[in-house]
């Protein structure tokens, strides 16, 4: 059983194909927030 920290996870994950998914989730959220803002402006 490992008994020390594993410091490599962060670096390997950022280099993996998952990086696109990470960015994508933030983009989707940003789009939703913008749409909500527009909704509030259109129907105040």
């Amino acid at each position, binding site marked *: *059983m490992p008994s020390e920290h594993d410091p490599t*996870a962060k670096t390997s994950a950022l280099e993996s194909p998952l990086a696109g998914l990470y960015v994508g989730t933030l983009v989707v959220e940003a789009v939703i927030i913008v749409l909500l803002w527009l909704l*509030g402006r259109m129907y105040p």
Partner: protein
Amino acid sequence: MHALDWFILVAYIVWVVVDGVSRSKSTHEVEGYFLANRSLPWWAVGLSVMATQLSAITLVGTTGQAYATGLRFIQFYFGLPLAMILLSLTVVPFFHRARVYTAYEYLERRFDARTRALAALLFLLGRAFSLGVVISAPAVVMSAILGWTVPTTVFVIGLPTVVYTSVGGVQAVAWTDVKQMFVIVGGMLAAVAVLLFGILEDVGFGQALSLAGATGRLSALDFRLDLRETYTFWSGMIGGLFLMLSYFGCDQSQVQRYLTAKSIDQARHSLLMSGYVKIPLQLLVLGTGVLVFVFYVFQPPPMLFNQVHDGRIAAGPRATEYAALQGEFDAAVADRRQAGAASDEAAFLASDARMSDIRARAVDIVKDATGDAQFTDVNYVFPTFITTRMPIGLVGLMIAAIFAAAMSTAAGELSALSTATVIDFYRRHFVKKAADSHYLNVSKLATLFWGLFACIVAMYASNQGSLIEVVNRYGSFFYGSLLGVFILAILSKRATAVGAFWGLIAGMAVVLVVAFTTAIAFLWHNLIGAAVVVIVGMGISVASGSQPQARNLPNP
């Protein structure tokens, strides 16, 4: 309810139990029972993660909250996508590579048994009472809607859940969650369809949005920098980030979900699924509440959505006063409908305000008659709409969806409580070397114990306002502090066991003081707790001058 609706509800509960029990085939060893042999695909884990988090409180309380105040609650989830990314980068690979059964098992390897025991104890206490609320909240509402007693409803939710969780283990929990998510989402989409069909008979979609917007229900974003304001963009983005990091990273009910994944990447995918889907899903729920509001502009709403109280007051000593209120309410309803149809915003808002005032007076009568000073009507809005306005068949589906949401959350929490009890206490401190069959039997007993405990708590828990807020307020007492300990464990090599333990104590103490002596909104408590733990923990670690040591845990 129609016989078909009862049939659908009963058939659903039977199906869930039978399917869950059938999953016991691969649960004869500890790893199979607690972690499904780490064999589940990412999409099943992802759906289980979402089902565990989406309780009946979301379906019942959040829709009611949206009916009353609109979309603002969506801000609560703004921190979730970033939290999923951070957890995928840090905690998920740590826990998977450590081959732990519980999140707290890792704390002993990093610090000591005392810190592990304290963190696990906080989890058990907090989660057990939270589970009681998770069962109680929908049970109180559904008992009024279905005409059952509260204890009956509590056991209809609790007993099948205990059965398939104890027999089938986490395999049963996860695969049942998958099915329940389809029932929940399907039910919500059916509700939206019924609402839109009803609304569009009277008014166009654009006009419907205008009516909702006129009362502020479409203003989802609040950019004020006010720490006392509960739901703002900042409290959701920052405070909510810490709440989500703690809940999905340090709470065993979620950690156990993604520990069942086949690999680290599969576990990451399962969390990212929530990152993509959770906010749109929550908008579906909140949007349903807003649509219910618009629906009731053109269809007469009840003055009180809790029809049990409505009937009692109308037949009680204050019947005359209540009848007069009802008359005023009916007149205001007609005026609002007329103003809405004519797009007369000023008249619409005036009559809507009159209706709110009359409803508040009706609620005051209920409070006075029942002695329940905390009574609120909002949690009965959506269930009342379901049982009085939805077609036969869909009523049964929606009630099944509400029960599905309650059971999926309860199952995840029960499984986690059982796991932490056995792994972090029983096997760690009492019976250290026994056969897997022994620990499995103890786990089943632990599931039964916590299930009964939660049902007893549920029967005595009282209605305390918006259900979704109650659960999250309780969680914010300790989530932030637990997150702080894991931050020390994973991100700091200098933190020592002494620092982590006393930092955790300090974090909890500060949050309690802040919660009871200030008006700071509860979402910020998570950030405060985490910060105090990290600061105090690091301070004690550095001041004590002792070298942090990585500890080896004897293979239990």
